[in-house]
């Protein structure tokens, strides 16, 4: 078997790529994709550690994370479509309703 820490480092790299994407991008759809990337990296650590300790607990957590991700994406994309209809832009820097 490939050592567990290979998987953990790989997941760390994927998570970091997701973080950089969230910081750099201004398109909220791509920011959502990067959030999904981070969720996937976290799921990968759960599964790798569950395999390491020989327990199903890690995979249980991944099932719940999957359900939460599905709910989050449907509501988030609904918000983006709503925002675009109202403001005719989806640039994340021009949406600052809560600023004042």
């Amino acid at each position, binding site marked *: 078997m490939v050592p567990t820490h290979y998987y953990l480092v*790989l997941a760390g790299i994927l998570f970091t790529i997701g973080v950089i994407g969230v910081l750099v991008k201004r398109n909220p759809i791509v920011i959502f994709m990067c959030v999904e990337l981070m969720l996937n990296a976290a799921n990968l650590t759960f599964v790798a550690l569950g*395999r390491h300790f*020989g327990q199903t607990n890690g995979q249980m957590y991944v099932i719940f994370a999957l359900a939460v991700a599905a709910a989050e994406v449907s509501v988030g994309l609904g*918000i983006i*479509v709503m925002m675009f209809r109202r403001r005719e832009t989806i640039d994340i820097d021009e949406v600052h309703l809560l600023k004042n």
Partner: protein
Amino acid sequence: MQLAPTIFFWIMAILSIGSALMVVVSKNPVRSALFLVVTFLAVAVFYVTLSAQFLAAVQIMVYAGAIMVLFLFVIMLLNLSAPEALKERGTIQRPIALGLGGLFITALIFSQALLQMPTRPAPAEQVVNLGTVQSIGLSLYNPNLPWLFPFEITSILLLIAVVGAIVLAKRKLD
């Protein structure tokens, strides 16, 4: 450590990291979405190598199927009405983000938290059936384990998400 699984791991690792980088680098959101599918499929392959067979199938169905269709639909909706709306501009925060990300991954790897496991990995014959549908179901629906109640709560979460998405997608919000 056998040679063949390690080579396979490295190939898939390079594939997943490369496609994840392309998600961030691509200017076109459709291209980002398609590279994200590649990353999801690579993660599904990692699930198979970690003997999580059921989760690999669920990953492909939920992420590469349902969630990506949602993303592509929204990109299509917004692109049709305003092709200029999704263009990226150059930003000043890009080098700062790259620096912070590099610092983060360096700290993560060199903190040794990821590299030192408290125990030896479980033997292969113990975990070969860890991720089958039977094993997952026996854990998920076992009343003596803490997963049954969260599983029921998840249904309420999904119901709320459905109602929220419908309310948001309505034309008038009054």
